[in-house]
């Protein structure tokens, strides 16, 4: 059984909003029965009211921040870059790298010097990332059909790449039925055994 001193500890906590549950119920119940504790409760309440009415929080001294910031030079705060801006930046860097290495590859001396049939369709095996079939094919079609010369060169590059790196699964390109002008022929997307799609243009 709690004595009044212990009850008054709880009365103080109750005024601070720190009492709940059974303790709160018992404290309120005790207050209704004990005049001494009720008197203490009222005294605490009066103090609370006086403080709230008559005290204010002083302002920190003016100019203090300037002295602090001079004493500890701050590193510039990192800006929060929106996700879209970040994506555009990353995509730009990736594109620049692709162009750089692509040009480097294009301008190097080819390892495969004999181009059997420049009008043959391009066979492209690609890890196309998050693009679905339609997106990938549309993009590739646009690239290849925009410039016949580009098509020819792409064929050359990819043919060389296949010859160099795609061991064992290389399929000879089919003949372009439309004659000498290299252009988009047909599209055929299939899954090969290596879980990569093959596209013919």
């Amino acid at each position, binding site marked *: 059984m709690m004595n009044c001193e212990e009850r008054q500890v709880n009365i*103080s906590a109750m005024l601070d909003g720190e009492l709940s549950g059974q303790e709160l119920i018992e404290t309120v119940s005790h207050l209704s029965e004990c005049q001494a504790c009720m008197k203490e409760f009222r005294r605490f309440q009066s103090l609370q009211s006086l403080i709230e009415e008559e005290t204010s929080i002083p*302002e920190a001294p003016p100019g203090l921040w300037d002295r602090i910031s001079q004493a500890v030079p701050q590193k510039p705060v990192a800006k929060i870059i929106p996700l879209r801006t970040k994506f555009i930046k990353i995509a730009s860097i990736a594109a620049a790298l692709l162009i750089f290495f692509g040009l480097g590859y294009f301008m190097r001396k080819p390892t495969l010097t004999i181009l059997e049939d420049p009008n043959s369709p391009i066979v492209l095996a690609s890890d196309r990332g998050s693009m679905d079939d339609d997106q990938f094919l549309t993009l590739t079609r646009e690239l290849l059909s925009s410039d016949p010369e580009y098509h020819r060169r792409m064929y050359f590059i990819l043919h060389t790449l296949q010859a160099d790196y795609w061991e064992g699964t290389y399929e000879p390109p089919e003949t372009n039925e439309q004659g000498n002008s290299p252009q988009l022929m047909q599209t055929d997307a299939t899954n090969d055994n290596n879980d990569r799609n093959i596209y013919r243009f």
Partner: protein
Amino acid sequence: MDWESIYQKHSRGIYQYLLNMSGNSHDAEDLLQETFIKAMKSEAALREPDRIHSWLMTISRNLFLDLYKKKMRRNTSTAGNFSDGMMEIPAEQVNPERNAVLSDFRSKLLQAMGELSETYRTAFTLSILQKHSYREIGEITGWTPAMVKINVFRARRKIATVLVEFRG
């Protein structure tokens, strides 16, 4: 971290705490400055950014306790300043118009606080003046929940005895 924003948000509460604890604006200002300099230099130690206020308050309390101990050793304790009625009323509080109404209560409050031990003054300032939760007070002081509860009660009772009777 954007320390200027953090300063703008938290400096006032910390300054009030330091002013109540030290009893004079000169020490409070020095301690506030030291608090932020120390915090900025050791920001890597802040593990929970959500609790930055408690962390800053802990730093300021530790700095105050260091100063308090030094003053005690030199026998010119801060508590002595309080009990001799030498506690300085901050400039903001000596506005003549408001002062006419408030000075009696405030000077009595400051005097009563000066008569409290450092422990009860801390409990009173953090709980009743600044309305920190008991959990936050525990974080700042390292007291257990039971210690927080009893220290706040005893501080409240001592101050109530002086002030409520003063007001009638």
